[in-house]
């Protein structure tokens, strides 16, 4: 259907509000129609993203509509404008024109305030409170209530982060409706009746569990409560009174103290719009900004609460240089000279490896790529400090890099069917999950995973059971329902970054997309991954998807960069750089935002490499071992662009102006000292170059990947499956204990048969890797693929990369008991 046809198909209705005629689409609510002509009706429960509820009754207006005889007939009593749809010829009189409506609204306000404690001076919402504001604009100035108010114990902690003050609550049910409709985590609901009606946590004896029974401890959060939600912070933001507050922001500040700066979240590849509220250079809270094309009104709790990492006591403010075995503070010129001297020696020796990490902005990634190729003369650069493969690089170069806006959030929402492979919507996608859940019931969702995770379950997804390593075979052999559903127009196949671990899987996904006509979307986990692909921080990829092995592509980039030639040797990928540094085949490393505990072998590599330059925000485990540490700015203190998984450029400005330098600026200075000019001193310069380079034509791109599927594991072997839970012990969530408490409890998952074979019945389970190191955590018998054990990647007590030392997909031994 074309856009014009769409427009013509919209039926409109004309009505009169406060004497003004307005024409709106059929089905519009009166309150929305009034907004369109600038008439504001007070409201609490009404929220444009939630279904109408009519719970607070604050929006009462006088309504009259034509009866069957065509004469205007008034409703006997004022009606709630947030639940009533407009009809042709309706006449609405709001509080501005109808004394009756005004009287009704004042009456409702008086009723709502009867039990309200009026503790505005203590309340976090004071100063930005819809109840406070509307009580001033639409309420009586004096109270007539002289009796004792209802008293509840306060606050009631719903989780370690979310606190409920029931005295302040006006029972608008925005929070419960959000939890049910949007997040699918019905962790609170209305309880009791009459004057004692209140919001409360689920009590099995009072309410039903909405089909979901907590299977302890798998469904519990760290504090032992059931129904933890990754999106609970949104309820605090939409609460129209101060009933829901967050422990992190509680009593910290007042709205008039805060300076608000718009920004983009650094936590996942969705590029959610956020608002950073800060006071005297200190971030106090972050809120969701409304961006209809990306995150709508919502963000994850990680986006909202995980910001204190950048201002912990280990924050680097001045460069550090190692002198006599100790890291000591040094001036910028001294540190830059020391770094340049070390890198120059290594460049002329065995070479330098560059690991920018997946969290930097597009501009920073571009500077890293150019720095490696122009200043260090190497292709040994890779931002993928995670499971990766050459096949993935070819896939990224051929289909993802510089492909512009591909599948979008809106496409996901409209897709008739979605297949997810190597991707957990809730844990790895954040707001992607909310978009998919918006189409619950209208969309067929398939997930290829060892078991149906809680997120997939909430999407009513059908499980295509598969052990790690079997994805390629599964996709190649896929038929029946799934293929039929994916053949529908607009279907989407989502591939996660974890799919790179299985040889042939990305090839199989691409061929399935061709076979069914479905569109392919690559959704990585970290915020900088897509931008790094665009900027070419891969050993075989130059900016714009150009293959580093292609002479024409190289010549083109060399000309644009004003250098004679670019390195033509095949570069090492991240795993090879780490191995080479450990073995002494590389003389130096330049490491960006990478945590050693996230990457197996990196700690060894950093310890063994002759010279290490670390560009870090904090004294991380890598910085601690480095020879020169150059402090860089955290996202709130710099400007830049994240490219989200859609390929959408998400630019953000500096929220808090400090003298911290962004990575690109530091690399630009360092390159000068090395005798190369990166022309990467400003964002404008970098974006100008990126735009001039543009996308590579097809012949200059890497070939479409082709890899064979691996052999199936032997019978009786147990394969490790693992992914990051959204809230875990990642470095960007440090220093936020309240958030950590809402994370899901660490459990291992095994099937009944696997548990039996391992001799496990109850309690803890021990997983041992090939290196002999092991992890013991409580285990839960799950309905899942046999021969697989699942562990969270970096949850408390389960740091797979550091403690187990093996990658997901490898064979491990499993034994019952600790």
């Amino acid at each position, binding site marked *: 259907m074309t856009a014009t046809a769409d427009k013509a198909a919209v039926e409109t209705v004309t009505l009169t509000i406060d004497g003004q005629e307005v024409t709106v689409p059929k089905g519009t609510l009166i309150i929305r129609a009034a907004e369109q002509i600038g008439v504001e009706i007070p409201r609490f429960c009404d929220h444009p993203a939630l279904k109408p509820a009519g719970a607070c009754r604050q929006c009462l207006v006088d309504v009259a509509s034509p009866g069957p005889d065509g004469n205007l007939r008034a409703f006997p009593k004022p009606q709630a404008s947030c639940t009533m749809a407009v009809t042709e010829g309706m006449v609405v009189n709001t509080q501005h024109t109808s004394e009756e409506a005004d009287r009704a609204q004042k009456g409702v306000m008086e009723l709502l305030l009867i039990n309200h404690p009026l503790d505005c*001076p*203590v309340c976090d919402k*004071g*100063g930005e409170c819809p109840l406070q504001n509307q009580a001033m604009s639409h309420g009586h100035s004096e109270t007539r209530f002289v009796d004792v108010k209802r008293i509840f114990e*306060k*606050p009631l902690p719903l989780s370690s982060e979310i606190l409920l003050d029931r005295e302040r609550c006006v029972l608008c049910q925005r929070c419960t409706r959000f939890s049910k409709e949007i997040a699918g985590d019905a962790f609170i609901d209305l309880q009791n009746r009459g004057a004692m009606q209140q919001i409360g946590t689920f009590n099995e004896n009072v309410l039903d569990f909405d089909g979901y029974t907590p299977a302890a401890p798998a469904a519990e959060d760290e504090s032992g409560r059931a129904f933890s939600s990754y999106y609970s912070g949104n309820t605090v933001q939409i609460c129209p009174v101060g009933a829901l507050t967050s422990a992190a922001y*509680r*009593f*910290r*500040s*007042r709205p*008039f*103290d805060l300076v608000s700066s718009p920004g983009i979240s650094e936590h996942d590849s969705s590029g959610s719009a956020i608002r950073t509220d800060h006071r005297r250079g200190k971030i106090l809270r972050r809120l969701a900004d409304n961006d209809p094309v990306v995150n709508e009104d919502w963000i994850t709790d990680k986006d909202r609460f995980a910001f204190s990492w950048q201002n912990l006591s280990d924050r680097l403010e001045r460069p550090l240089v190692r002198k006599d075995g100790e890291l000591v503070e040094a001036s910028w010129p001294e540190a830059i000279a020391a770094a340049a001297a070390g890198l120059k020696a290594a460049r002329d020796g065995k070479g330098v490896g560059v690991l920018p990490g997946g969290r930097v902005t597009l501009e920073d990634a571009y500077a890293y790529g150019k720095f490696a190729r122009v200043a260090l003369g190497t292709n040994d650069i890779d931002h993928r400090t995670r499971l990766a493969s050459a096949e993935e690089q070819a896939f990224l170069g051929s289909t993802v890099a510089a492909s512009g806006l591909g599948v979008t959030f809106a496409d996901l929402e409209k897709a008739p069917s979605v297949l997810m492979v190597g991707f957990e919507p809730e844990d790895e996608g954040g707001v992607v999950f909310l978009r998919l859940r918006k189409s619950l019931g209208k969309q067929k969702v398939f997930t290829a995973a060892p078991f149906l995770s809680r997120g997939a379950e909430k999407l009513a997804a059908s499980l295509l059971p598969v052990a790690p390593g079997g994805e390629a075979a599964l996709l190649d052999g896929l038929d029946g329902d799934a293929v039929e559903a994916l053949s529908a127009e607009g279907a989407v196949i989502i591939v996660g970054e974890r799919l790179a671990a299985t040889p042939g899987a990305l090839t199989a996904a691409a061929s399935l997309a061709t076979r069914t006509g479905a569109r392919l979307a690559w959704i990585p986990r970290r915020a900088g991954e897509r931008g790094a692909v665009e900027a070419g921080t891969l050993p075989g990829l130059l900016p714009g998807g150009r293959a580093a092995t292609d002479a024409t592509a190289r010549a083109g980039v060399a000309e644009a960069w004003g250098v004679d030639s670019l390195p033509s040797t095949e570069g090492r990928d991240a795993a090879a750089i780490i191995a080479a540094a450990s073995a002494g085949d590389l003389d130096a490393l330049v490491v960006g935002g990478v945590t050693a505990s996230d990457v197996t072998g990196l700690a060894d590599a950093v310890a063994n490499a002759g010279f290490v330059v670390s560009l870090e925000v904090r004294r991380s485990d890598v910085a601690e071992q480095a020879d020169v540490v150059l402090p860089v700015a955290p996202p709130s203190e710099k400007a830049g662009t994240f490219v989200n998984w859609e390929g959408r450029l998400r630019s953000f400005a500096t929220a808090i102006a400090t003298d911290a330098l962004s990575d690109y600026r530091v690399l630009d200075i360092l390159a000068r000292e090395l005798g190369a000019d990166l022309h990467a001193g400003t964002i404008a310069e970098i974006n100008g170059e990126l735009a001039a380079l543009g996308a590579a034509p097809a012949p200059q791109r890497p070939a479409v990947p082709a890899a064979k599927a691996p052999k199936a594991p032997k019978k009786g072997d147990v394969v490790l499956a693992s992914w990051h839970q959204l809230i875990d012990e990642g470095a960007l969530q440090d220093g936020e204990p309240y958030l950590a408490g809402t994370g899901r409890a660490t459990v291992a998952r095994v099937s009944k048969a696997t548990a039996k074979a391992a001799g496990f019945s109850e309690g803890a389970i021990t997983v041992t890797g090939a290196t002999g190191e092991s992890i013991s955590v409580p285990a839960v018998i799950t309905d899942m693929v046999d021969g697989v054990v699942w562990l969270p990647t970096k949850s408390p007590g389960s740091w797979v990369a550091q403690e187990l030392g093996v990658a997901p997909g490898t064979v491990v031994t499993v034994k019952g008991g600790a």
Partner: protein
Amino acid sequence: MSDADETWEVNRARDGKDETFESNLPKKGPLGQAFAPVAGFGITLRNFFKPTVTEQYPRVKTPPMPRYHGRHQLNRYADGLEKCIGCELCAWACPADAIYVEADSNTPDNQVSPGERYGRVYQINYLRCIFCGLCIEACPTRALTMTNEYELAGPTREGLIYEKQDLLAPLEEGMLQAPHPMVPGTTDGDYYRGDVTEVVKEQLEWVRTNRPDEPTLPENAALAAEEAR
């Protein structure tokens, strides 16, 4: 010729005119004109016989009027808990932006004021304060009042930013230094209405357990007085 030169020309031409000065004051009679040179002594003589108004500050300090707007004070309840809840309404009301407040949560281990919230940081910058008293009007718990103290000068700028400990009212007889728990069974409302009139034994017990050396405990009073001497 420039504009400036032209102006100068005009001025010189005007000054060149021989004009005599005419005063607007009433002209004195001949007697007045004769005594005019010594008229000032008359004023001096007259004041010899009037009461003196000179204040011998700083040797003699005169108390100002009872409602004089002097230095601020953060008051306490009868049991020693602070009245300030850190709501920042004073900072909001301040037209000179002289007040800075940061609040925090009261916890069972650190109950500073009744209720959930207390003022952790409280600063008044007396270089900015204009003593208008709007902060006192804004205070919802009557925590902030003004004293009659007017000696607010100092050699440093830092010294004129008064911190919470500089502003807190001294502990009166029978008060117990915060933090300590509220009187059992009371709410912040009871405190506000003045229903709490003294320290109870549960509060004394708590302080004895947690801060046995607290000088405001009755048993330590003698010791504290000696130390103060």
